[in-house]
């Protein structure tokens, strides 16, 4: 029968071939996932976590890759929460987070986790107010009450008191906040919780707070889009994002009572102001910093690693990378609009990296 109908036979052969090809594909995929890093002195490291430092980390990875051809490091910017989860599940070699891990997260982890600060970021207040040309100034209580929905008009006497000589319109304030869970929101609400007891009690601090008022925009770009397009809005975004997009940014009154413009230098100043009082584990919030030049809404971003590394080869590669990052890597920070660590904090981070071990043996040098 096949002789008289070659087309049919051909078709079933094709079918068979497709099937075989599929089977081979599946089998080879299974092999790859099971294989892991091969020998030959090559090391492959996986990291995951915060989106905020992602541009800097990608720069680090490519620069570090040029210097160390045998080390391959990948970083997935899936969010701080996801980074912490994957680190706890031990599916990555390092995690990254914009805010320090909580005590209960640290306790439920299978090993001791170290916080290595890498750079600093800041959150700025941006707004859309026609007819106002000089930067607005806000004291901390005013910021809190605007985001609590207690100050509802732009010409509120308390805003006017911070901005003598500025003609403020009598319009309603529309608050815009992040709708996605974000380290930016965590830093901002941490700041608000410090400066307002009412905020702390009603809302608290976290990546996805329950905002008392306002519209939610997705990502820095979502908030920016809504602020730019809607008159009389106020919102908050990352410093780097605001600088790149030349948004109007407010000067904020810090813990020492001076109004400070957000900038890379004023963020590093905020970190320097609190460097001496940094706790042993380096988990610290630097919002509402004192010091004449310190911008009050800023935070460290961390790489998270296990103190005791299971694999000495991978552990060694990780330690070398971290050491390179907080020294040579810092010079890429400013170009990408991150604030580099103050010198005191680099020393503290060095100590943390030095304490990483594999099977009890130190991994440095």
């Amino acid at each position: 029968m096949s002789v008289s109908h070659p087309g049919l036979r051909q078709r079933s052969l094709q079918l068979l071939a497709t099937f075989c090809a599929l089977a081979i594909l599946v089998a080879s995929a299974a092999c790859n996932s099971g294989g892991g890093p091969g020998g030959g002195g090559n090391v492959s490291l996986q990291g995951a976590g915060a989106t905020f430092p992602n541009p800097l980390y990608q720069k680090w990875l490519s620069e570090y890759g040029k210097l160390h051809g045998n080390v391959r490091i990948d970083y997935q910017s899936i969010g701080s929460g996801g980074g912490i989860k994957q680190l706890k599940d031990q599916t990555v070699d390092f995690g990254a987070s914009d805010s320090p891990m909580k005590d209960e997260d640290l306790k439920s982890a299978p090993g001791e986790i170290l916080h290595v600060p890498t750079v600093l970021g800041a959150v700025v207040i941006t707004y859309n107010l026609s007819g106002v040309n000089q930067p607005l100034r806000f004291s901390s209580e005013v910021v809190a009450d605007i985001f609590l929905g207690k100050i509802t008009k732009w010409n509120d006497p308390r805003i006017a008191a911070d901005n003598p000589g500025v003609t403020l319109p009598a319009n309603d304030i529309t608050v815009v906040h992040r709708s996605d869970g974000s380290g930016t929101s965590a830093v901002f609400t941490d700041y608000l919780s410090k400066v307002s007891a009412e905020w702390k009690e009603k809302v608290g601090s976290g990546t996805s707070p329950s905002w008392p008022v306002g519209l939610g925009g997705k990502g820095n770009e979502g908030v920016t889009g809504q602020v730019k397009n809607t008159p009389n809005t106020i919102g908050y975004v990352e410093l780097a994002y605001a600088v790149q997009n030349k948004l109007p940014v407010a000067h904020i009154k810090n813990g020492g009572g001076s109004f400070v413009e957000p900038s890379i230098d004023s963020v590093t100043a905020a970190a320097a102001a609190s460097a001496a009082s940094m706790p042993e584990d380096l988990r610290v919030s630097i919002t509402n910093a004192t010091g004449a030049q310190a911008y009050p809404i800023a935070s460290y971003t961390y790489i998270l690693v296990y103190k005791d590394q299971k694999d000495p080869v991978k552990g060694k590669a990780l330690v070398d990378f971290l050491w390179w990052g907080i020294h040579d890597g810092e010079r890429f920070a400013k170009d990408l609009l991150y604030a580099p660590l103050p010198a005191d904090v680099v020393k503290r981070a060095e100590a943390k990296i030095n304490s990483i071990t594999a099977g009890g043996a130190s991994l440095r040098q």
Partner: protein
Amino acid sequence: MSAVPENEGMNFVGQGSTWRRVLSPTGNTGDAVFRVLMFGVALLMVAIVVSMVVALTVDSMPSIRQFGFNFLKSQRWDPIKGEFGALPFIYGTVASSLIALLISVPFSLGIAIFLVEQAPHYIARPVGFLVELLAAIPSVVYGLWGIFVLAPFLRNYIEPALASAFGWLPLFQGSITGIGLLTGGIILAIMVTPIISAVVRDVLTAVPGSQREAALALGATKWEMIRVVLVNGAPGIAGAVILGLGRALGETMAVTMVIGNRAQISLSLFDPSYTIASAIANEFTEATGDLYLSALVELGLILFLVTFVVNGIARVLVWNVTRKTGGVGRAA
């Protein structure tokens, strides 16, 4: 659509006896392999759906145990304090999809009727192509367009007009920002219109020409003839609407960018709202803590169920309609 294989079968049988064997269950090995393969593929689909429901249920158990039925009733969503309630999200999802259908169904029907019954070929082709092109635009592009074009347009022209004309209705009160439930619904309407109109166009094309000729021969006007065609195509049209509804319920990115993402239930269409899909997309990456993650997974489970229930209701409606008009017969 279902009639096509039968026709082919008839032709093949006419061509030679081997083809009959290919189509018959007792055919050669190739046939057997094909049958097994296709059965496997069909089974795989069922397995995927079942495993999704199982996985969602298992992962949402901590939240189900903690909140029980309250999860569906509570309006508070506060991850910091560990309080989770899904009602505002369910409301936002259903309300935005309903707005979308209210707007898009008349438009889609109009487009399809125009393309099939009225437009000359040289217009129908390019217009049909453009409508289908709308379906290929990524939803994030719709979202950006929503923020930068649609929202300002609604804020400056449409919403003030609605407020001054219908301001006595609670639906059109509140502050006008251009971002909110109405904007979300309109974006969705634009996104589902190409889907619904493309399917309706195919349905109307499939209505036999004899129906039109019969109607016209009985002295019907063009409009009366179109009504006959629509009645014939009713089940297919309803299917198209259900397809659009499914798209609207699950759409995430574009809605997220314009709906305001606020977990509240407000009568006003101008106020911000929140959909289930948006909430999951927004909060999943930074969700820490088992209960929080579990609550988000349970939201996913609810979206699954909402889609199921809404689809079920839609099918019952369709069934009712087709039963009443049943004598006329189906298109296609």
